[in-house]
């Protein structure tokens, strides 16, 4: 406790608040944070269950979580779920690679050359806003109803997002790094891989993450329209035969897929961009 100098005048004393550094805590802030984020979905699920059991919503449209779990289990045991997820994941993976790799190479080139950029920009920005789903019929016409049309439509969606973000990533690299590379006679390899690519990587990852979200949308849509298997087909068929529980299983799986894929990208980002401050 600090001593207060006695003075004439109004006797109001203000003291700084004490912090909690001295106290022993049951859990660290991080642990409490984790607990909170586990807790929140649980609250939603419990509320849902209660609301259905109390007959406040129509159980035909919103089956209780417990009844969905049963269907979930049955689908897992029959292997239907695994094969649907496998098919969809393959489409995402192939489409993602087919879109992201050329976008990356092209984006680095476009980012470096102002003239080429001036030439290509009108084309890119005319095509970029077209809803990718709108060209799905054209893609199916060209590539048929097989797997290739799914790969291609996902690739197109991924391509533009990765391209635009890669260009932006290269353009925002501080020119001083190009000067350093020139001054120290960097080889072509060191220049493209060591300076340009690495400098643009944070922006490239922004593009990849956005692309992953869009890829899921396009995947499910493409499967609704013209596919015989996959998670989108599972959802669509459930609607047609009014298998509401199965429909919800499909929704849960899609959202879980999105979640896992974005976690994977986050982890990959941490691996290949070790020079960024921990953004926790």
């Amino acid at each position, binding site marked *: 406790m600090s001593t207060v100098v006695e003075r004439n005048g109004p006797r109001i004393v203000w003291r700084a608040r004490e912090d909690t550094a001295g106290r022993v805590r049951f859990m660290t802030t991080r642990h409490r944070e984790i607990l909170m984020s586990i807790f929140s979905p649980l609250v939603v699920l419990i509320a849902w269950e209660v609301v259905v059991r109390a007959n406040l919503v129509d159980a035909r449209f919103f089956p209780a979580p417990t009844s969905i779990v049963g269907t979930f289990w049955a689908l897992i045991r029959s292997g239907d779920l695994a094969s649907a997820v496998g098919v969809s994941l393959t489409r995402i993976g192939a489409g993602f690679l087919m879109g992201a790799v050329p976008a990356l190479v092209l984006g680095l080139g476009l980012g470096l050359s102002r003239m080429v950029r001036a030439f290509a920009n009108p084309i890119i920005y005319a095509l970029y806003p077209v809803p990718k789903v709108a060209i799905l019929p054209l893609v199916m016409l060209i590539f048929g109803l097989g797997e290739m049309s799914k790969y291609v439509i996902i690739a197109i969606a991924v391509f533009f997002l990765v391209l635009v973000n890669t260009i932006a990533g290269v353009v925002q690299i501080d020119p001083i790094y190009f*000067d350093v590379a*020139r001054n*120290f006679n*960097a*080889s072509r390899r060191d220049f493209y891989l060591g*300076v340009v690519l690495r400098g643009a990587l944070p922006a490239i990852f922004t593009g990849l993450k956005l692309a992953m979200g869009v890829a899921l949308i396009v995947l499910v849509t493409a499967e609704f329209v013209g596919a015989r298997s996959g998670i989108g087909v599972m959802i669509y068929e459930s609607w047609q035969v009014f298998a509401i529980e199965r429909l919800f299983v499909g929704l849960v799986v899609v959202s879980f897929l999105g979640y896992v894929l974005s976690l994977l990208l986050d982890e990959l980002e941490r691996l290949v961009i070790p*020079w960024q401050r921990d953004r926790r």
Partner: protein
Amino acid sequence: MLDDVQIVVEDLVKRFTLPTGSFVALDRVSFQVREGEFFCIVGPSGCGKTTILRILAGLETKTGGDVAIHYHANGRPRSAMVFQGEAVFPWMTVEANIAFGLRSQPMPAATRRDIVRYYLDQVGLTPFARAYPYQLSGGMKQRVSIARAFATDPEILLMDEPFAALDEQNKLLLQQELLRIWDESRKTVVFITHSIDEAVALGDRVLVMTAQPGKVKQVVPVDFKRPRHIPELRRDARFGELVYDIWSALRDEVSRARESRGSARGEESLP
């Protein structure tokens, strides 16, 4: 021309063209730098001193005049630059940054590692070899930049206000460190600064520039003996005198430049 002259700049002119018109950044600048000399260029911001350095480094073209560098083509790079501000690659470790200039020189990997290790030690960053720049202070990053330039063993070191962003204590430490490392190799150095104090403390000669357009005002020899101890040097009365002389030469120019700029603004505001 003297035998040991390494850099010859004669009537160098640089004109920049902007959408709003062109302006002369360098107006018939001439000077010579001897081999092994520590040559400082001092002047107010906007006098074109960085432009001179960038032209010497081959990063910028000249409009007129002649710039020639005599060098022994023995596999060593012609020049290496320590840039102003943050120029270490944030995505490379300290080690990788220092090794960057060496990658273009053919040598066994072990030799390269030894050189990197030597300069890591020279700038006192051995414990931080694997660290990334975001984990370093401003002074440490500038040490990396200096080590990167020295490691390539260039004929000429070009330094563009390398300590401008540092606090006073760090600046002094790094100046002293630079002199120590330089003493071992005695490379030709062209060092740009806006600090008269720094120029006098480090240089063998100081070129004083005036601004708008950038011109040579005078070249002042600084004949303190080496190795120098900067804090001791600062106590020397001759040090203060030199700094004062250069400042007097610059003062008229600075106020003149300010007046002309003020009147230009005044004219613009007229209807």
